[in-house]
């Protein structure tokens, strides 16, 4: 029988209500018939509906990590509650009678297989067809090179415009940025979109938001945030100009894995990252923390998760961007309590905690062996790691937070606040990074004292400007048997 976890069901459900409805159907004995194929790739359930006739719902696991659900109910939700209920039946390990795979399912499988084969294979093309395909490819390559060149030049123009804007602002001073001038800046920010510069556009929007907020509440902190943005914007403009100019001069217009491509607002396709050789094969990642941020500058919700690779202990990030305008169409992600085994994982360029993405991954529960493996990679030389963290965090272009696994001897209270101590006596204060939800308060209400000793912490290094100190925000505690999340 398929091994299903509730987590998998929740991740497939279009929303929590659908999952809850599916659970209810299963718990109330909604299925009058349950069958499966002898090879455990096909499952069928006959479910009572609100009408006279029952619904037939099936789950086809011919591709293990991409099951196909079908149901005769009229719901447009996908997967529907009956499909989810069928998964709950599997979760509950109910008794499924053996059946033959229906003819229509077999035909659908064949059709799908044939399509996949056709897309992959070029070997069967005749010489004329092959030449035609090659010419078409070359023509499209030429056209896209011209388009990319044009784009790069336009971006350079946009960077010039941005630089001019920043210089004018520096000349006049941040203090003059307010009232009607903010509207002008908003217009200028909009224009950056025409120059293929969504990255600088977002930064400029962020700056405008900080100044607008300062006008409302007068808090100095907004100026600090504004300066951080200006530093990043200035560095981005300078480095990007050099990068783009070099590409044009050397006629190396093709996509590369320079961090600046994304910082300028470029979006990598998974296939592009694979072509650039930025992928890991057969890697396993355990999710350690999850949360959702909202960026007013981007007008997007960002579902963020920290994953630790079991083999190396390195912490990676996944981001799911959900624009406000398209919220209805992009599914919100949720916490995953398990390990993702991915055949192919794309890694984005960058320093610190690199972003990863996969097309599909097999989810499984975390085992004690997984946890042991993770714990074995945790850093114990805190002082050295803190130094490395500072060297990374000091750069204007990198993220202001760095996530790491730290092995600690104890977590407790000091006069200055909660703190962590490693086996070799290194200590660091625990705090809450700007923009992150408070987690230190939750430390003191954990249910088990053992969590404060000899464990591994997923912590976020950040620089506290007010105290001029490097601190660590606790996000999750990894024990020998569990992952205790201080976030979600």
């Amino acid at each position, binding site marked *: 029988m398929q091994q299903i976890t509730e987590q998998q069901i929740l991740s497939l459900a279009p929303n929590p209500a659908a999952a809850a409805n599916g659970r209810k159907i299963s718990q109330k004995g909604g299925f009058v018939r349950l069958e499966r194929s002898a090879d455990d790739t096909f499952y069928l359930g006959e479910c009572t509906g609100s009408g006279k006739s029952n619904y037939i719902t099936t789950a086809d696991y011919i591709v293990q990590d991409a099951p196909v659900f079908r149901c005769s109910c009229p719901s447009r939700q996908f997967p529907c509650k009956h499909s989810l209920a069928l998964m709950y039946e599997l979760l509950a390990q109910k008794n499924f009678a053996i059946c033959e795979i229906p003819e229509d399912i077999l035909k659908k499988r064949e059709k799908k297989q044939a399509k996949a084969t056709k897309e992959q294979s070029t070997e069967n093309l005749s010489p004329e067809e092959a030449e035609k395909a090659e010419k078409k490819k070359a023509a499209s390559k030429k056209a896209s090179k011209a388009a990319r060149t044009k784009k790069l030049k336009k971006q350079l123009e946009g960077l010039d415009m941005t630089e001019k804007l920043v210089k*004018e602002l*520096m000349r006049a001073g941040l203090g003059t940025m307010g009232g009607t001038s903010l509207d002008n800046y908003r217009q200028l920010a909009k224009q950056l979109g025409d120059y293929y510069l969504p990255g600088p556009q977002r930064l400029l929007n962020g700056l405008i938001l900080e100044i607008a907020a300062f006008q409302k509440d007068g808090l100095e902190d907004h100026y600090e945030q504004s300066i951080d943005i*200006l*530093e990043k914007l200035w560095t981005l403009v300078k480095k990007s100009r050099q990068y783009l100019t070099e590409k044009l001069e050397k006629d190396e217009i093709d996509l590369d894995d320079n961090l600046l491509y994304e910082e300028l607002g470029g979006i990598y396709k998974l296939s592009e990252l694979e072509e650039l050789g930025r992928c890991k094969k057969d890697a396993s990642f355990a999710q350690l923390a999850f949360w959702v941020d909202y960026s007013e500058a981007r007008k997007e919700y960002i579902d963020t998760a920290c994953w630790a690779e079991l083999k190396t202990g390195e912490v990676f990030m996944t981001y799911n961007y959900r624009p406000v305008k398209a919220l209805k169409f992009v599914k919100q992600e949720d*916490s995953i309590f398990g390990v993702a085994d991915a055949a192919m994982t794309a890694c984005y360029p960058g320093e610190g905690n690199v972003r990863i993405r996969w097309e599909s991954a097999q989810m499984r529960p975390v085992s004690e062996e997984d946890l042991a493996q993770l714990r074995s990679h945790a850093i114990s030389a805190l002082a050295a790691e803190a130094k490395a963290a*500072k060297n990374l965090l000091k750069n204007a272009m990198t993220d202001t937070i760095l996530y790491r696994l730290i092995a600690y001897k104890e977590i407790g209270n000091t006069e*200055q606040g909660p703190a962590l101590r490693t086996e070799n006596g290194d200590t660091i204060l625990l705090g809450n990074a700007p923009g992150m939800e408070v987690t230190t308060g939750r430390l003191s209400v954990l249910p088990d004292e053992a969590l404060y000793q000899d464990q591994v912490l997923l912590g976020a290094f950040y620089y506290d400007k007010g105290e001029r100190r490097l601190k660590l925000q606790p996000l999750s505690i990894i024990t020998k048997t569990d992952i205790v999340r201080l976030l979600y």
Partner: protein
Amino acid sequence: MDITPIYELRIRLKTAIIAGTSLLAEDFRLKRAVEAIQPLLTASPVFAKIGQLVQALLAPGQEGKEGLLLDAISLVDAVICTQGVVAVSGEIEPIRAGCYGTAVTNAPYSLVKTLIEALTSAGNGRYSYVIETHKNQPHLFDDYRIKTTMVEALDASYADLANQVAEWLVEDGENVIPLLKGGFDPKGKRGMVRRVEVLDGVAGAKENDFYLEQLAVAEKEVRQALIYALRHDPNNIDRLLEMIKTEKGSSKKAAYYALAQQEDSRVSEFFWKLMKKKPEDAITYIELSETDWASEITAKGMMDLLRPWTSDVEGKRLTKMQAEMVKLYWKALPFKHGESIAECYRMAASIGSRLSKPLEGENEVWKLQIGDSRGNKLTFRRVMPRVLDRAIYLHPTKELCDLAVELYENVKNTKEEGDYFIPVFTAKLLTEENCSEWLKEQMEKGTILGEKRRHSIVKYLEEGLRTLQWDNKEKAHILYRWMVNPVDGRNHTIVRKIKQKMSGEFIEILMTLDSYQIDDTLSNCIAPEDTKYHDILLEYFYRRALTVSENRNYCYILKRLGGTKFEGLAVHYFRNRNLVDRWEVSWYVDQMPGSAAEKAAEIEKVFDMIKSKKLKGRNITEDWMEQYLDSVRYQ
């Protein structure tokens, strides 16, 4: 190496960014800051670079100062970051854990975060979301992330939510004490008051030291709540007697209420004296007191007042003051016990209708508003059994239950019979596993009153069973009632598990009563795992829907319980209407169980009746019928 000059430089560079590079030439503070870093310039290349940049900033005629300023501050920020302190001085004290009753639930973001937001922010639907989640997933509320939020939620702007959370925290027990005390502000607002109330409910006398400590500075409502919390510890008696003299307003009242809870001869003497001087105050303050002396004072006071009416007194009327006193006694009686209280009830029962007269100087018969669940005004003779019922609900002791039976038997075949049925029925629900035989006897015994008696009892059964429901957390059938606490003026929910089994003959009797109210109660009494009664009741409700002319409520029940039978429901309903409106059709279809196709088929039969003039429709044309049927079929 002291890098203080670098921090100062940073401040000046920030100021320059705010003021603008056009004013750099006049920035003497920046110049001073640049001078101050000179000794550091040889310390490392990066400081030298900073020096270079800031010198260029100040150089007259230098081009590109805007960029230089940003370069300079970026570099300074990078240096400051690398200089950030890491190590912590001093000892690390262990954190005491495992004492908050929290748990690791591994609940996902979608559940936990939504619940946290519902508990801490304002907005429509949040209260019902919290209630539903607590009903369906109570374990979530033990999650350590939620537990701390619940304490925050005591300050929620929506009072019902905050009060409900307070009740849940009390149920959690002593684990929550450290969370309540952490960050406590004795000068705070409603949230802090609720913290005290929860502490009071959970810890009682154990936190007496905390109450006293906070009282030193507490103000207003928090002070009042802390004073009331002193009632648990008899060592506070002298203090409370003193507070009655020194406190003012609500705090003074709180001191009275707190003192009244003490079983002590000094307190008894104090209140006996008060009873002589100001009986209305005395009875008010001893309302909640369950002490022996409070029972004696209440019994004596009430019987002295009622005694003249134990025989017929022509023309005599209660004064308004006496009527107000009776109302106070009614509030106090449910918390009292003992033989003298029983005598009080007997005396009141013997008075019967003698007090069902106008008050002195009035024309209207004296009626009251407490007791009847429908909010009807009741006379004295009808209120007294409800007071006894309330007393039994609070404390179903053998003495009170036997008293209820005794009084009920005494009034059999009189018009008081129905009213005195209520406390007996409550007593049986709370103390007996199966009162079916007794219930059948009450309903079927042939007497002069016959059908009228049966009807009367159904009415009182409706009243007695009104709040009965299955509670998923308690895993039991419960009754709940609200009682106003005079100290804080709030409604508090008091829940009681019934002993009566909701199965077998008892349910069968309830299904014969032809009462929608009881049917509604039954629909709330189905335990989720009880598929047997779920099916029995579904079938019963379906049959009832085909019997009663107004069956919309049954449709709602059927749909809520997942019923699928629909045939004949709409036809039966509309057949009894004089006129069919469009909105009524839509409304009914919404309430009906059944799939879209089935609903359409059923409503089509109703439309056929309209077409054949068996029913009259208003604004229901053939076109509209066709369009509407399509909209139902394809919804």
